[in-house]
């Protein structure tokens, strides 16, 4: 069964460093998302991406964040200058172009900023 994959599973970085989180969505999916979950809290929407551009973003997704689909398979989230409060689980999700609107999540990348 096709699945969303994410790398790395765990990333440790120092405050102020840039990080890139990578995702490979399900191959025939057209809509891509990033969410984050701070430990013990709910899952929060960051950004959605369709047709090579951002279609919606939350207040969390400020100028420190960017997304890219550099080729036909990868979808990346970049945090330019990490802060301690960026420590969280980051989930990538994707869905197809039908009207079912089901989003399939990857296993997540745990980001720890020290």
């Amino acid at each position, binding site marked *: 069964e096709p699945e969303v994959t994410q790398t790395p599973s765990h990333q440790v970085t120092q405050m102020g460093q840039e990080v890139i989180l990578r995702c490979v969505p399900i191959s025939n999916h057209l809509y891509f998302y990033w969410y984050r979950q701070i430990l013990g809290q709910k899952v929060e929407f960051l950004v959605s991406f369709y047709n090579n551009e951002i279609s919606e973003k939350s207040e969390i997704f400020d100028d420190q964040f960017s997304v890219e689909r550099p080729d036909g398979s990868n979808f990346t989230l970049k945090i330019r200058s990490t802060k301690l409060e960026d420590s969280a689980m980051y989930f990538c999700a994707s869905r197809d172009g039908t009207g079912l609107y089901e989003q399939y*999540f990857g296993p997540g990348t*745990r980001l720890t900023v020290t």
Partner: protein
Amino acid sequence: AQTVTQSQPEMSVQEAETVTLSCTYDTSESDYYLFWYKQPPSRQMILVIRQEAYKQQNATENRFSVNFQKAAKSFSLKISDSQLGDAAMYFCAYSIGYALNFGKGTSLLVTP
């Protein structure tokens, strides 16, 4: 702004019994989609069940079913014949087509 409320931070059920997790939401939209996701200790988000708001019939997936009350903006999840593997956080989510808006979750404990 759309909000999703899960009023039960924790629930407990005995194996083989039935449990209902509650969810209410607030929206002015008429077309939307509702979901329940399960998050086991691995923290993977697993889709359990979905409901389209325009459908009156309640969705079912094996032991999982929903009670969708559109007028009351209520979307509860019923788990029948509970199994130890059902122990997890359960998140209710709402979408009008782009972002999923999640509730804070209900932690379900299943006891033998």
